[in-house]
């Protein structure tokens, strides 16, 4: 059972329920700050450049990218895996911490879920445009057609990927949305603006907080939480089979599914950390995202970082232990040393060594250090995907096929476009959606407070004597 003594307070400042709704919803009613417009315009600019690059890709073709016959997967697949990995934090946060009854998740899960939806949207663009003829993308959907009917290959990880990503997209979006319905109702009932009342009132779907609604809402969270937990593991396992099922040296290995899943959660949590430090700094959510919250995420990251380091070393060990000269070449001559040694060591240092700084409390409590390390992990995880995709492809079995790869300006622009899309999405989220789950924070507020002293309850109850069976925040 959750014990506030271990983790520190869930909410600082002894807030009433009214203060909780008021303070979390304040940015929605407040005037949009100037920095928001500046950041949004920059994001839109990046997004615009991305759109231009997509236009060039579609109108001219994949030839505008740096990919060639040998290295058929370039930045597009690196970025796809990177974004999907980031997108894993939403479900990991909402579901795993829900199952583990970690009440501190209530302050962060909304942001993590929002991030998931935008990141998965960004990710899905890459395979779509990599198809070359994206206007025929629906061919991958198995439907009775006039081409035979010609069905898709159900044994192909690329098809699994399509199913997994679209399912993940729809499920995380609906999980996110239904979690927000009670909060939209709160906005509807507390705002003074008529327009906001109408708009949020529509999105609240007529929610009033009756016991019949809550009962089914809880059942829904239970079902969705239970089955979506499988997705956290399955989606990135499937992404890893894109690699593991092929017979490339460095890819054809059984460690890939767990390695990818852990890496995904690692990068996702790092991105969550980036976002919550921003929320604390920009929106002064310090009372809801307390030092204890940041501390908890840092502790998780240090643990996952150890798993990442172990995975890297295991891969190298197995390459040696296998006795396969192709595996040996890939790992020892083309990753640890060789043309791409910088990317390998960047991956190793950024993911396995730098996060070890989180062992120190002095590091964990300095927000700007935490912010910088979270960015470093994100960069490190990008290098990990570069390392996997590019090194194996450039030099495989036949030296006659060897080639080098460097991205074209169009590929770089495409990636920057998705960065712009992500930050624009996050900014819109900050501005128009309650960035912390109001109803869930309210439900854990009582754990920090003594029971009120009138009625039959004496005044002598403290939070330690509280009947913890009133554990009612399951969603």
């Amino acid at each position, binding site marked *: 059972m959750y014990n506030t003594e271990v983790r520190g307070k869930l909410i600082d400042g002894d807030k*009433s*329920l009214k203060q909780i*709704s008021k303070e979390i919803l304040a940015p929605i009613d407040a005037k949009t700050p100037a920095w928001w417009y500046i950041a949004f315009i920059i994001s839109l600019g990046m997004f615009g450049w991305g759109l231009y690059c997509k236009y060039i890709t579609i109108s001219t073709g994949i030839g505008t990218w740096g990919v060639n016959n040998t290295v058929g997967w370039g930045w597009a697949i690196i970025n796809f895996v990177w974004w999907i990995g980031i997108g894993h934090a939403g479900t990991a946060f909402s579901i795993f911490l829900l199952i583990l009854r970690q009440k501190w998740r209530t302050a962060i899960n909304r942001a993590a879920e929002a991030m998931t939806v935008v990141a998965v949207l960004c990710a899905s663009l890459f395979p779509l445009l990599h198809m070359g003829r994206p206007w025929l993308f629906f061919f991958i959907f*198995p439907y009775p057609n006039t081409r035979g*009917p010609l*069905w898709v290959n*159900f*044994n192909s990880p690329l098809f*699994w990927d399509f*199913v997994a990503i*679209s*399912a993940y997209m*729809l*499920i995380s979006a*609906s*999980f996110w949305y*239904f979690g927000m*319905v*009670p909060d939209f*109702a*709160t906005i509807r*009932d*507390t705002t003074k603006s008529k327009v906001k009342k109408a708009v949020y009132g*529509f999105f609240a*779907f*007529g*929610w*009033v*907080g*009756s*016991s*019949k*609604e*809550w*009962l*089914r809402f*809880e*059942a*829904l969270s*239970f*079902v*969705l939480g239970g*089955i*979506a937990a*499988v997705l956290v593991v*399955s989606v990135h396992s*499937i992404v890893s089979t894109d690699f593991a099922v092929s017979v490339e040296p460095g890819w054809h290995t059984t460690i890939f599914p767990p390695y990818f899943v852990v890496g995904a959660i690692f990068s996702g949590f790092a991105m969550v950390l980036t976002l919550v430090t921003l929320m604390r700094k920009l929106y002064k959510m310090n009372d809801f995202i307390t030092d204890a919250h940041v501390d908890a995420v840092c502790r998780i990251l240090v643990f996952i970082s150890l798993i990442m380091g172990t995975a890297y070393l295991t891969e190298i060990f197995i390459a040696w232990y296998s006795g396969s000269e192709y595996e040996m070449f890939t790992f020892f001559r083309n990753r640890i040393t060789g043309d791409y040694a910088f990317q390998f060591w960047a991956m190793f240092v950024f993911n396995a060594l730098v996060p070890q700084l989180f062992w120190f409390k002095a590091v964990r409590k300095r927000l700007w250090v935490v912010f910088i390390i979270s960015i470093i992990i994100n960069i490190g995880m990008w290098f990990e995907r570069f390392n996997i995709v590019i090194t194996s492809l450039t030099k495989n079995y036949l030296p006659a096929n060897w080639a080098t790869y460097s991205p074209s300006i169009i590929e770089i622009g495409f990636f920057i476009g998705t960065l712009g899309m992500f930050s624009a999405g996050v900014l819109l989220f900050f501005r128009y959606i309650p960035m912390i789950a109001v*109803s*869930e924070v*309210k*439900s854990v507020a*009582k754990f920090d407070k003594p029971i*009120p002293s*009138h*009625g039959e*309850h004496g005044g002598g109850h403290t939070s330690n004597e509280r009947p913890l069976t*009133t*554990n*009612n*925040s399951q969603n």
Partner: protein
Amino acid sequence: MVGVFDNEFDLLQAFGKVKSKGLKIEEVYTPYPIHEILEGMGTKTRITHAAFFFGLFGALAVLGGMYYAAVESWPLNFGGKPFNTFPSFIVVTIVATILIVTLLTLFTFSARAKVFPGKKAEIVDIRATDDKFVMVVDASSPGYDAEELTALLKASGASDVY
């Protein structure tokens, strides 16, 4: 009769007292779910059972669909492997089943809890989604006495009774 409470402990106390008097509680509106209330109201939900059957249906439909496409409709020979490659069908079955369960459970929730786009909220007390806990007692239930009930609600800590 509507009693408005400032916190869940007062609400729970009043809830228990009103129930033990044999009065019918029409509905309770709270800013967050309170398990004692959800149990005490006596309404049961079968959404979890429905979800199981959605899952069963989904798994069979997806597996059946793939079997039909790969074995019946257009069998393709991939290196002499069997047409019905059941083990690799499992991957798609799991993920697609999860999707089917999620969507159908959402629709079931929407229909049963009557939470859907375009619904007009029937608000009893507008503060219930913010910081108040609102209990509505049925005035037509036997043994109902307005004065006595008002006193009872006030004594349990109601901040407002009307």
